[in-house]
């Protein structure tokens, strides 16, 4: 069943337009993982580089992708840095993301039934009877003025072309801002200046590189390639062999 909706539509690396959950679900299912914090952390880089590669997408759509990206980065950072304390709101976002994704998966699978049955065996109502008595029964409210006012009211009621989802736009406006915010956020709680290590991002691409390098560095810390000393949560992190690390990290990113 699942393959039907996946087949053709969600092919790997195809720049198909889809919502953030469709993309996330695809990345997780490609890896044959269940939906949880571990699998979400493992698809974070792919998700971010996909979002970074999107062009020609309406602003409100991009906003919904970015809002999810920032939650993913938090999940990733948390999984790599157990010492990182999250705000209550951040914890809530993380917990909700998992649940929302499960709900999305459930409904997108049910959507297959809708797709398969829609228009297949239609139940038709009877046509309008043609023999009905021909009468003319107007209403005193049908006047030239009322008709004009109603038509003009309809014209004014028409929604404007672009809808901006208020909530999500308020949270994040661009991927640059999101990354700035998170960099600042993680930097503060770790008291570590990784700008020195990964360079200062100015353009959108550079900023994305900063965060991706940072995540990659943390990954290396986790697997023990790099030795990081952090005495206390809020003290400086001392990274050993800084020169070499930079090269290693760069080669990881390039892969």
């Amino acid at each position, binding site marked *: 069943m699942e393959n039907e909706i996946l087949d053709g539509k969600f092919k790997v690396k195809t720049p198909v337009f889809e919502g953030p959950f469709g993309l996330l679900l695809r990345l997780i299912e490609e890896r044959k993982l269940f939906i949880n914090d571990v699998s979400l952390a493992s698809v974070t880089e792919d998700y971010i580089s996909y979002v970074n590669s999107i062009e020609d997408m309406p602003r409100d759509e991009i906003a919904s992708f970015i809002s999810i990206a920032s939650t993913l980065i938090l999940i990733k950072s948390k999984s790599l840095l157990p010492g990182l304390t999250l705000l209550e709101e951040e914890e809530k976002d993380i917990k909700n993301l998992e649940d929302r994704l499960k709900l999305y998966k459930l409904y997108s699978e049910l959507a297959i039934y809708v797709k398969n049955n829609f228009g297949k065996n239609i139940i038709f109502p009877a046509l309008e009877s043609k023999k009905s008595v021909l009468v003319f029964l107007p*209403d005193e409210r049908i006047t030239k003025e009322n*008709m004009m006012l109603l038509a003009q009211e309809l*014209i004014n009621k*028409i929604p404007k072309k672009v809808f901006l989802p208020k909530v999500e736009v308020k949270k994040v406006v661009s991927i640059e801002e999101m990354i700035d915010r998170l960099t600042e956020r993680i930097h503060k709680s770790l008291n570590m200046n990784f700008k020195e290590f990964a360079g200062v991002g100015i353009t959108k691409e550079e900023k994305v590189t900063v965060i991706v390098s940072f995540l990659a560095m943390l990954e290396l810390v986790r697997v023990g390639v790099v030795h990081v000393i952090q005495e206390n949560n809020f003290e400086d992190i001392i990274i050993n062999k800084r020169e070499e690390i930079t090269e290693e990290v760069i080669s990881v990113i390039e892969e």
Partner: protein
Amino acid sequence: MQLESKIEAVLFFRNESTSIKKLSEILKVSKEEIGEALISLKQKYVDRGIVLIQKEDEVMLGTASEFGDLIEELQKEELNKDLSKASLETLSIILYKNGASRADIDYIRGVNSSFTLRALSVRGLVEKVSDENDSRRFIYKPTFELLSFLGVHSIEELPEYFETFNNLNKIKENIEEPAKEKDSNEI
């Protein structure tokens, strides 16, 4: 068995008197088979609210005559009911666009207008005609009676007609674009 049910479905849907010849064409069986099926169908309708009425070669479904009073009351009620705001809105679109398809009206109102159109037709305010350009489409037009009730000889005499007509026609373009973009990209 099956044939009776098929006839029943066809008659119910068409909701008008239908010849046995027409039924035999639609269902691709002989007129004799239709005739036999009609006999057993009639028996099924004994003591029901719907009856099968046959007049020579023509058949149709109707309400049982014993409920005549009930139906008459319903008919009166339908005609005396006040027109809803939705119906009046729909009527204003039909007037100011000088005839509109259901799809046009639905687009402008943002909701489906089947029932409101029906209420307007029943009262003789609008009439449904085939679109000259596309026979599969229907256009709802104001009736002559409606125009004379409004005291105009032609649609153009309605207040601010040309401006409103243009604005209504612009709406469709505005709404259609983003909706289409979404559909084609997401499939």
